[in-house]
């Protein structure tokens, strides 16, 4: 114990004097309190739940047994946080399938149902708000300049005269700038055309967000908050499992639905049927028909990103 002045001699044989006791006790408690205060931030580490998570390999390096353990661990984590046992699966790309999306700009009325269906399906943070789809109200001047788009329109009824509506989300490019810039290979393109993110591998540098010409990537600046009763328990590793603070996320064509053979949530809710989705390798799919027969627009085609997301017109 450091003492600033020499300890006075103890009275012979019968314990310690009150003065020396107080001195020692004060110094001691001050030192211990300081140590406890210094260690206090460690308590916040509890959400780095396990050594397993810390030592987890990259998604593409996990063997089936390891994957099973990882999925079980994620289910445990979600159950601990939301008191709901989810069903977390790892959907792999299907053979002979390449997904393509088509959106009918002549029909879209800008009702934003897709935005909210996406939020509900994909467990996006409600606060702060994260939305994958951004619906731009565009002036009908033929320019297709995204900078002229307004996302905050709030009229009593849509559509409004003199404008059209252009929902923008991840274009699942064949030549994705976001994948090229990722320094840790936490995002990559799968054989079925979906660019996915391993949320456990992402370091949150946001290079991909800066690289994306479609403003499709979202960053979790804080831990996302989702009301437990709004949680969608049908989850996938690369898709809609709850994200953590400091990772990127984006539209993944609802992998938990589409790799199971179903339509994405945004397609199902669109009241005007503007959203079309399917397998471009199947000549009888609706997207094959659209690309063969309709006038198609590729947003920012000049950038050479080769999107798998097409806008089309039919009126």
């Amino acid at each position, binding site marked *: 114990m450091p003492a600033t002045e020499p300890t006075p001699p*103890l009275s012979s044989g019968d314990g310690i004097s009150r003065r020396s006791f107080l001195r020692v006790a004060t110094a001691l408690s001050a030192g211990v309190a300081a140590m406890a205060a210094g260690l206090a931030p460690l308590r916040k580490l509890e959400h780095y739940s396990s050594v397993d998570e810390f030592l987890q390999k990259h998604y593409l390096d996990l063997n089936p047994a390891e994957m099973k353990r990882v999925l079980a661990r994620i289910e445990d984590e979600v159950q601990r946080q939301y008191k709901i046992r989810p069903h977390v699966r790892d959907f792999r790309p299907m053979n002979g399938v390449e997904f393509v999306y088509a959106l009918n700009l002549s029909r879209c009325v800008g009702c934003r149902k897709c935005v909210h269906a996406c939020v509900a399906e994909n467990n996006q943070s409600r606060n702060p*708000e994260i939305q994958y789809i951004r*619906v731009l109200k565009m002036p009908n001047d033929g320019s297709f300049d995204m900078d002229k788009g307004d*996302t*905050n329109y709030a009229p009593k009824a849509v559509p409004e005269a003199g404008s059209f509506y252009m929902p923008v989300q991840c274009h699942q490019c064949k030549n994705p700038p976001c994948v090229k810039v990722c320094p840790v290979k936490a995002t990559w393109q799968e054989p079925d055309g979906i660019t996915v993110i391993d949320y456990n591998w992402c370091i949150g540098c946001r290079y991909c967000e800066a690289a994306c010409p479609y403003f499709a990537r979202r960053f979790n600046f804080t831990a996302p*908050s989702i009301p437990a009763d*709004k949680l969608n328990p049908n989850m996938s590793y690369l898709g809609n499992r709850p994200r953590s603070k400091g990772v990127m996320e984006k539209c993944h064509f609802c992998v938990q639905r589409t790799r199971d053979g179903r339509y994405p949530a945004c397609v199902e809710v669109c009241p005007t*049927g503007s959203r079309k989705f399917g397998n471009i390798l199947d000549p009888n799919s609706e997207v094959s028909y659209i690309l063969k027969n309709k006038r198609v627009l590729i947003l920012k085609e000049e950038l050479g990103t080769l999107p798998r997301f097409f806008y089309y017109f039919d009126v």
Partner: protein
Amino acid sequence: MDPRKTTLTLAVLTVLFLGLAVVFFRTPARPERIFQAALVPSDALAIVPDTIRISAGRLVSSGGDASGLQCYACHDKKSPPKIVYDANHHVVLPKEHRDLIYSMRNCAECHPANDPVKLEYDADNNVILPKAHLRLGEMAHGSVLRNEDCYTCHDPNQLDQLHTAEGTRLTLDNATLLCAGCHGTTYRDWQAGAHGRRSGYWDQSRGELLRQGCTSCHDPHAPVFTPLIPMPGPHALHARN
């Protein structure tokens, strides 16, 4: 060194550490500072893939199941509306509903359950019809009124059946084939999937692909798609101004 002193010091130290450990694990950590924005009433009915209206065909083929009409978007489930009958025991349709039932609109497509309608009354205590409802139920098929003759589509001898231009009789749930008679290109697109709504499974080896017929979205008497109330936009935090 005095052994009693050492023992005492160690005992005090132990007690102190134990006390601190208790305090350490019982005091809550300082909460993370996050921006607390008001939650946008987001996903009320957004994920329900219901169509704009219930087609007569669907109503007939399901044996009159109107559950998809979402009456409880406006009505309180605990105090259901009173049904009034006239002298002949026919249901008296309330004035504010005549158009809705005629056009079979799905209320919840515009009125989410968490944002119920506030009814306004005039001096005689009658519900004031909102403008958006006045046009429902008008005959407005064809922009130059060339199609206002009921018997262009309805069979004159049996009004709940349809007949095409070449005389084929169709039931109400086959209305799509009747529409195809005039709107051939749209029908072709619909068959290929480029027009209209699809839900369920794109991969038909795994499940059923659900297609919606014309009258699930278009009112056959006024087929132009009516304006919708947009869902809330991004939080004002993201607004430009």
